[in-house]
């Protein structure tokens, strides 16, 4: 039995759901950040699945660009995390409730 398109979509939805749950539940900034990365990966899986099932390269190009955005996000996000930690001595998101470093 071949894997169907809907299997991949279901797996992607499950991973995305777990990521959303983590972003809501976690209070550590870095853990939230990792959950966001997981959500991006879930979306990537749908792109690749559609690209493979429709025999179209566009989906894979979008995955490529999403990965670039994720890399940029990692650099800037971790810079923000370090700046917040330097000023507040804490990584708890509740401690950083104002938009000021």
């Amino acid at each position, binding site marked *: 039995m071949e894997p169907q398109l*809907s299997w991949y979509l279901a797996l992607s939805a499950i991973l995305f759901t777990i990521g959303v749950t983590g972003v809501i539940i976690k209070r550590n900034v870095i*853990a939230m950040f990792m959950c966001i990365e997981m959500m991006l990966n879930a979306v990537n899986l749908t792109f690749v699945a559609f690209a493979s099932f429709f025999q179209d390269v566009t989906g894979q190009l979008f995955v490529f660009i999403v990965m670039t955005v994720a890399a940029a996000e990692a650099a800037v996000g971790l810079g923000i995390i370090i700046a917040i930690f330097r000023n507040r001595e804490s990584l708890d998101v509740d401690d950083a409730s104002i938009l000021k470093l």
Partner: protein
Amino acid sequence: MLALLFILFAGMAIGCALAVVAQRNPLYSAISLIGVFISLACLYVTLAAPFIAAVQVIVYAGAIMVLVVFVIMLLNIEQEEHRRTRLKFLVPVAIGLSAVLIAEVAFILVTVQEFRVNQSATTSDVGLTHSIGASLFTRYLLPFEITSILLLMAIVGAMTLARRGGLLSSGARVVPGASVFPMSMVNPNAEPDDLRPVEADTTDEAARLLGVTRIRDYSDRD
């Protein structure tokens, strides 16, 4: 065979994803997240996308996670402390939203018609590097260039954020060792152009001469 591989790697991905959320220690979360990335890369291989699978391993499991683990180690955070009560209501909210999304998954699995793959694609080159490169530099050149600008902005932004500010914060450490200050800087009663040197050998002495109150002591951290 492919179905078996799918079930294996999907199970690995879901298990590792649950571990990312369940772990209290961010370092263990990061290692579980690497498991998610690796199993997704294996799924990409089964979807005939070898280039994306390689990039997934190199960029995600390699570069990004090294950066994350590096920051975790650098900040030396221990496990999350006890849960405060203020955000407790978020847990039922999260469970409710997850239930909605899982219901959507069930909806997809039950009602969406199976898409028929035309299996003439044995000679397909969709996922190969040269077809991706050809599309990237012809039809999708504009997104590619915009991506390069985005990376440039990310470099500048990360440098700006990570740089120490020019002002001496109250907890900042004066550079240890012999420091030489002009008399006009140390003594408020001196003439403004009095540049006779005043030497300080230790951090404390320099701080006392400059009138800097050392609010926080960092000496036990290193």
